């Protein structure tokens, strides 16, 4: 008797589960899946404009992929990767440092509330406005150049934005500033989630702070760390507004600052080339997916996805 009653109850509740998640899937199907399928479809067609006339869509198989791969794909990939790494490495180091300092009760730092809000501020400034500020600061007659040249460090009217590594450094710094607040807060949340008693136990056992950090904190921080790396990676691949504004859309100097998204934008801007743009989008997606899986695998041990009940 009881058994059958229970069975009936669990079955009827199941339906509610479906009802709850249905809106998500319906909305996603309309607004997310359909455009994505359309993009993938167009990537196999020749489809662009000449003036006001549209050419295509004509099926042309993998031609678009070949054009993209022999075109600027690897150049843009290299540029994007370099700028991202230059920005992210300092970013993660500084964020870890800050996160550790802010959560360390023994240091008794004052004014942490002030610092925590201040480091988040660059994130609020729009990338466009941010780029303009840097344009002004590092321009040839700008304050930085004037100051540094009067000390004799660099020649007068030094062209920061016109040199390859200098402009890349600038963009890396901008990326760093915009996102390190975010990263710090996330890492802080991760650290605070670590059981204090573990750290205390390690201290009692005589571990130095460096040992505590590397042997206790970091391993327990892994899930958040993975999340931070992956989201930063995805953000990095989509690096667009900063280089676009700093180089005025040209990817100068010597095309060494063209990023993947800038390449995509050029394809659309010049000739509404949905065919090649679609191919590029698919390639970027595959790249993002592969990288994410790679990072995920190499750092964590599938602890992130905990199956609920």
């Amino acid at each position, binding site marked *: 008797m009881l058994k059958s009653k229970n069975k009936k109850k*669990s079955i009827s*509740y*199941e*339906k*509610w*589960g*479906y*009802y*709850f*998640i249905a*809106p*998500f*899937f319906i*909305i*996603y199907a309309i607004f*997310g899946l359909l*455009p*994505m399928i359309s*993009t993938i479809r167009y990537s196999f067609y020749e489809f662009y404009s000449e003036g006001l006339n549209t050419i295509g869509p004509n099926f042309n198989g993998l031609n678009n992929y070949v054009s993209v791969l022999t075109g600027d794909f690897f150049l843009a990939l290299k540029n994007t990767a370099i700028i991202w790494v230059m920005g992210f490495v300092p970013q993660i180091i*500084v964020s870890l440092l*800050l996160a550790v*300092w802010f959560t360390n009760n023994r*240091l008794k*730092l004052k004014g942490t509330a*002030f*610092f925590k809000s*201040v*480091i988040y*501020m*660059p994130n*609020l*400034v729009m990338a466009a*406005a*941010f780029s*303009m*500020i*840097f344009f*002004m*600061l590092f*321009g040839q007659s*700008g*304050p930085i150049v004037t100051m540094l040249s009067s000390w004799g460090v660099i020649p007068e009217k030094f062209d920061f934005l016109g040199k390859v590594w200098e402009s890349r450094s600038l963009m890396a710094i901008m990326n760093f*500033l915009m996102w390190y*607040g975010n990263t710090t807060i996330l890492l802080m949340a991760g650290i605070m989630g670590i059981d204090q008693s573990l750290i205390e136990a390690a201290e009692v056992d005589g571990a130095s702070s460096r040992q505590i950090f590397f042997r206790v904190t970091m391993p327990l921080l892994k899930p958040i760390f993975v999340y931070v790396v*992956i989201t930063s990676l*995805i953000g990095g691949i*989509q690096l667009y507004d900063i280089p676009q504004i700093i180089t005025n859309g040209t990817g100068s100097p010597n095309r060494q600052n063209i990023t993947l998204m800038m390449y995509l934008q050029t394809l659309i801007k010049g000739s509404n080339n949905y065919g090649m743009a679609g191919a590029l*989008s698919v390639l*970027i*997606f595959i790249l*993002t*997916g592969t990288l*994410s899986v790679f990072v995920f695998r190499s750092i964590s041990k599938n602890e992130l*996805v905990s*199956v*609920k*009940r």
Partner: protein
Amino acid sequence: MDKNKLYKVNTIAKKTFIYAFLIMLAIISIMPFYLLIVNSTMSHQEISTSYSFVFKDSFLSNFQKMVADTNNKIFTAARNSLIISLGTAALATYFSAATAYGIHMYNFKGKKAAFIFILTVFKINTDMA
């Protein structure tokens, strides 16, 4: 006693270093914000040919020009942005919570698959737009 003193000196040195570093970061972080405000007080001519770290006096005239521009109605645009962002926040929160609740509370076929699907979607949704 000596060990204690050494420890204290160590801590003070450490703290000084930390504070210095933090203050430097703070200055670098506030600088763009500050400069933006300074820029808003400069006239068009001044912005395109020079830079300044002190406030100038064109804020009022700039503001008036911005408001008077009927081709870029700033307040309408702000209102539109507000409507969209409020709507997005409300809808997203409600539906996400509902979905999460559904996944968590109920046990139904394909739940694991649905969960993994949602995770994948989360990663790629910004990409293909």
